[in-house]
């Protein structure tokens, strides 16, 4: 039952199977081409990882909470989008906007009733409450929609893009474009708007932000809804690429490696980290799968995570305030 969930992004699996087939035909000639193909696939996946990582970072920066329910948010968002699309027959943009609206409300409500009572509690409580939340949301998703595998109706034109050096499958291409646009919008909001400035102020010093008249409570609620929005967009994109099941959210845990690599509180780091992890895990899948008999792609991010934590726990761009013992 886990076969597709473990793969996360099904198309990639498909691509690498093809790659292995080609390998047997003519190894020498195609080696370079495979390599490029894998790099491009990795970058496209990495864009999606970057977007999901952004959801983690937005919440962590403002509130200091690592939201382990991100995966459940993704699954829920994908199902809601699919339901509005197929049950109500709405056009894609409407379904997309509905899902975003839902995510905003979800973020605000969850922050108010679950996270706010735990402000100032030890880390284990906060981590566990997001895990509990994840379990509740996953259970509800499972209850409302049956666990069967479903696929999105075709929204984007199915033609793959031929870059000359490599071919990008349509799902990945559009996923990457979506993720990139969403990421840029988030960064613009963060850098230019009033709320963005309030969020940055809260992130850098809560006391000072409070004394300048910023409602820190509102910023907390807002960062949760932004985080939820980033997660559901990620969920919709991945649902488009590899279909929807209740295991879609398993990718949420892999993204932890991305945010650790980029630095827990760095937006730029999340994006760059996403691209690096995307490329590395696909390369690891290509070169190490034959040695270990498959599955390397899914565990590679965790190896990277452990390495980074041992060597440079604040990541590439994170603030170096992490307390060492």
């Amino acid at each position, binding site marked *: 039952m886990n076969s597709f969930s473990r793969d996360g992004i099904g198309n990639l699996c498909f691509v690498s199977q093809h790659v292995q087939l080609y390998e047997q035909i003519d190894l020498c000639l195609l080696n370079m081409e495979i390599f490029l193909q894998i790099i491009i696939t990795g970058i496209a996946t990495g864009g999606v990882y970057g977007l999901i990582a952004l959801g983690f970072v937005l919440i962590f920066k403002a509130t200091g909470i690592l939201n382990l329910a991100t995966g459940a948010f993704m699954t829920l968002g994908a199902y809601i989008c699919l339901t509005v699309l197929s049950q109500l027959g709405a056009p894609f943009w409407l379904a997309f906007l509905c899902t975003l609206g839902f995510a905003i409300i979800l973020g605000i409500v969850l922050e108010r009733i679950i996270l706010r009572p735990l402000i100032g509690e030890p880390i*284990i*409580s906060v981590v566990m409450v997001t895990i509990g939340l994840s*379990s509740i*949301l*996953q259970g509800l*998703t*499972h209850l409302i929609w049956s666990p069967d595998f479903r696929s999105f109706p075709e929204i984007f034109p199915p033609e793959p893009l031929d870059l000359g050096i490599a071919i990008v499958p349509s799902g990945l291409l559009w996923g990457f474009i979506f993720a990139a646009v969403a990421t840029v919008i988030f960064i613009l909001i963060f850098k230019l708007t009033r709320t963005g400035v309030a969020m940055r102020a809260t992130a850098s010093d809560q006391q000072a932000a409070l004394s300048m008249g910023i409602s820190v409570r509102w910023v907390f609620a807002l960062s949760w809804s932004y985080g939820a929005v980033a997660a559901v967009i990620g969920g919709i994109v991945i649902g488009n690429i590899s279909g929807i099941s209740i295991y879609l959210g398993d990718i949420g845990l892999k993204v932890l490696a991305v945010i650790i690599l980029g630095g827990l509180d760095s937006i730029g780091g999340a994006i760059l980290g996403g691209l690096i992890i995307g490329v590395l895990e696909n390369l690891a899948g290509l070169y190490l799968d034959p040695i270990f008999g498959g599955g390397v792609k899914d565990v590679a991010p965790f190896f990277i995570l*452990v390495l980074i934590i041992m060597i440079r726990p604040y990541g590439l761009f994170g603030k170096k305030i*992490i307390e060492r*013992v």
Partner: protein
Amino acid sequence: MRCGDFKESYIKDERIFQSFFVKFWLALFIIFLVLIPFVADAYILYVANLIGFSIIGAVGLNILTGYTGQISLGHAAFMGVGGYAAAILMTRLNFSFWLALPCAGLVAALAGLVIGIPSLRVKGLYLCMATLAAQFIFEFIFIHWESMTQGIRGINVPSPVLGNFPLDTEKRFYFLTLFMVFLAVGFARNLVRSRVGRAFVAIRDRDLAAEIMGISLFRYKLTAFAISSFYAGVAGALWVSFMRIVTPDHFPFHLSIQYLAMVIVGGLGSVLGSIFGAIFMVMTPELLNALSSALSKMIPDVGQLFIPMKEVVFGALIVLFLIFEPLGLAEIWRRIKAFFLLWPFSY
């Protein structure tokens, strides 16, 4: 009538059995536990065995997370290491169960030492993520180190044999489980009031202050990881010899969360709490199970709702306990006791 608890020395304060009544009721309770198998049916004994393994695992995790303050999201992985070590030792090297059990604990403790190394450099969220990564890496090893673990097919494990008396039914295994639970709980209860246990608590409360007072963080953190993993390994080994098979599916990430949930629902930093938590978290799904099979006579489709409902209830328990009763069942138990201790003049 008692009107309070008065102690005149620290030794009395630290005593495990503080009064004659405690000893009396505990003795009665133990007799009850020993007599259970003679009246209960196989299903109840099956659940009782599961509770026993969970208690051992939860007490181990509580030593690490509740007492030492190091969060571990990889407890199931250590159980897996113990389970696989026991299975491999018994099937490949023909160890007897009684030798394989402590060996499984030691192998798991060794794995715990390795995973504990990041705890010397990072803490809090970062340690949380390092242990989470360890969970997935171990899962990968269980699946893909086929020459040792036989991959997803798993290994068939023989039942333990005592003399020429095989412990192959729930009833027979129950006595082994009960004995191991006594050992585990007794050791933990004594550990936490020893020098080592106090060092653990000092590290949890403020690691820098502990270091300044001369507690070696390096030594005690790794000790906590090793002891906790030893417990996990023993619990894992018992579990696989009870189930008579070990597969990677036995030790998913979800199990790690379940153990953390037991510790939190029961009460962080309380041995009694881990026992309550383990009983509670094992019983809840079983009760839901019974409820759903009772309901399915009236509503036929209710069985399908059972699995997701279990997940919702599981998550809701964690969230509700954290928000409304962060000290867990142990605190509720303490309040009930305090109420009756001075009843009817409590205020």
